[in-house]
């Protein structure tokens, strides 16, 4: 950010920004004229002012890594064609802007308000067609089938996120996060866009209805809790073993000491 704010006063900055703005506005108008129905549907909700505001936010907060026109740099991938859903997920869960380089960007307190996130999303969506932010109907868990969602989840998701959606370790410091407490919208967007090292599950792989079923399944198991008592983070033998070795054996040792002690 600092490097950018220094360059802000560069004599050529105004020219660059003007050129950039012209280029984007120009390509937007060209796009608006010739775009297919599908793409038009993706971007209808965003007004031109949203896109412009989003661009300002982007240049101020994201361009250091993703490039002035989101074309990507050595520090960050290109955002052309990632779609509004990717921005809404990454910024809406606080993963972006990234706090520091590491194995993967982690969720943290969200840095922008809802309006700013939708402006940013509108700007990135205007750069190229990509997955849109899902509508209310796709997220309505009263319409989903939790049992079928469970089947889809176990085939496609459980190997990384764990059968109880508790999360799990990946290679070299990366991990699949727990899905408890993640909003319906963000679960949907993660499936549709494949954030970071997660594979993409596009609509031709897992249909929007199936995505809704998966969300319904996740919300159902989250609401029901663990039927077998304390879940210990649903992490399986590591957490359970640690608990038994410390608490269980500790109690046995305490009883042994008491049994062999002399009463006063």
């Amino acid at each position: 950010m600092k490097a950018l704010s220094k360059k802000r006063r560069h004599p050529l900055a105004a020219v660059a920004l003007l050129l950039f703005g012209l280029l984007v506005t120009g390509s937007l108008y060209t796009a608006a004229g010739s775009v297919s129905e599908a793409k038009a549907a993706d971007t209808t909700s965003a007004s031109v002012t949203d896109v412009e505001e989003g661009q300002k936010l982007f240049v101020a907060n994201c361009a250091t890594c993703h490039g002035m026109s989101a074309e990507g740099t050595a520090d960050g991938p290109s955002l052309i064609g990632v779609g509004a859903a990717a921005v809404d997920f990454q910024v809406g869960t606080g993963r972006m802007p990234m706090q520091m380089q590491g194995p993967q960007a982690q969720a943290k307190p969200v840095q922008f308000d809802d309006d700013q996130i939708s402006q940013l999303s509108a700007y990135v969506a205007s750069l190229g067609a990509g997955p849109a932010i899902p509508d209310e109907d796709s997220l309505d868990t009263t319409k989903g089938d939790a049992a079928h969602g469970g089947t889809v989840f176990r085939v496609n998701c459980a190997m990384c996120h764990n059968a109880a959606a508790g999360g799990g370790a990946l290679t070299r410091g990366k991990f699949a996060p727990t899905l408890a407490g993640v909003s319906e919208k963000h679960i949907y967007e993660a499936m549709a866009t494949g954030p970071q090292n997660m594979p993409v599950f596009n609509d031709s792989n897992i249909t929007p209805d199936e995505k809704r079923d998966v969300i319904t399944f996740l919300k159902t198991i989250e609401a029901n809790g663990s039927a077998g008592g304390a879940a210990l983070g649903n992490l399986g033998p590591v957490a359970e073993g640690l608990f038994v070795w410390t608490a269980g054996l500790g109690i046995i040792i305490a009883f042994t000491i008491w049994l062999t002690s002399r009463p006063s």
Partner: protein
Amino acid sequence: MGDHSHGSPEESGTVAKADDVAQDRFPDPGLPPHRPRLADRDPRAAKRHERQVALLFTISIIGTLFFFVAYFVLGHLGEMTFAELRVQNAALGLGTAFAMLGIGVGIVHWAKTLMPDHELVEQRHEISSEKDRQDAVDIIDTVIEETGIKRRPLIRNTLIGAIALAPIPAIFMFRDLDRTGKTAHQMIEQMRHTLWDTGVRLTRDPSGTPIKASDVQLGSAFHVIPEGLENAENMLNEKAKAVVLLMRMDPQEMNISAGREDWHVDGIVAYSKICTHVGCPIALYEQHTHHLLCPCHQSTFDLANECKVIFGPAGHALPQLPITVDADGYLVAQSDFHEPVGPSYWERG
């Protein structure tokens, strides 16, 4: 013991000598003096301990009653949600735990504080005399003599033969675990082949719908089963062998060895999902690092290098399924896997 802080090595008593046996022995310290407990001296303390023991037994009674409250009152409210079931489970467990713990802790407390605690010395039994030992040897000798096993070698040899053969059927019973009625050779052949064959479509697991090449976008992962799997004989066994992970990556990033150039469709590649270590399903795919991780023992395979092992105990690369597209644009297999899937076995070669 001697006072070693005085004297020098020349003086006796400082260094043990061969004839100085008595110096090595500890004197028998005897029993420690008996110390009366609080309850032995003070009747009020005894009364207090009595009440404590009774309280512990009462806790046990309450625990048992609590169990029945949980069983009947909580358990028969009609249809139970998972949350109610969890509460009931916890209540049943706590009730039983306190019912048992109350009795156990109460009895130990009773024994430790109120029951007599005088020390008793019981000598060990005398070690058996030489005569007893000789009697035992005589009994065995008589038995051997009366059976006549030494005089009748025919009986002895047939008995040895019978005992040696008797356990072998138990080993052969493991063969019954295989219910296919196939010979060993047929079963080995079965491991070499899967349902994949020329022109078999790749379909989604579990819906069984075919996959178009255009459906697979960069960075995506499909869990794939062969078409017609649901009608196959031994469906689960066939699925366990044939499952495939379909991924798409940039063809520029792939190192393709000679002979495999046309096994992918524009960067869409299919690999067996069965780990070559002990056969866990591998599907932890990281789309940017191109790593496939096995969750069981952390074997890691590099998709960019034809799924070669880059970490962990797996013995060899994941077998690749050669794929192409048919006239309708659906992904189909070119043939079966060129090598057996899954872990190594003797006949794999």
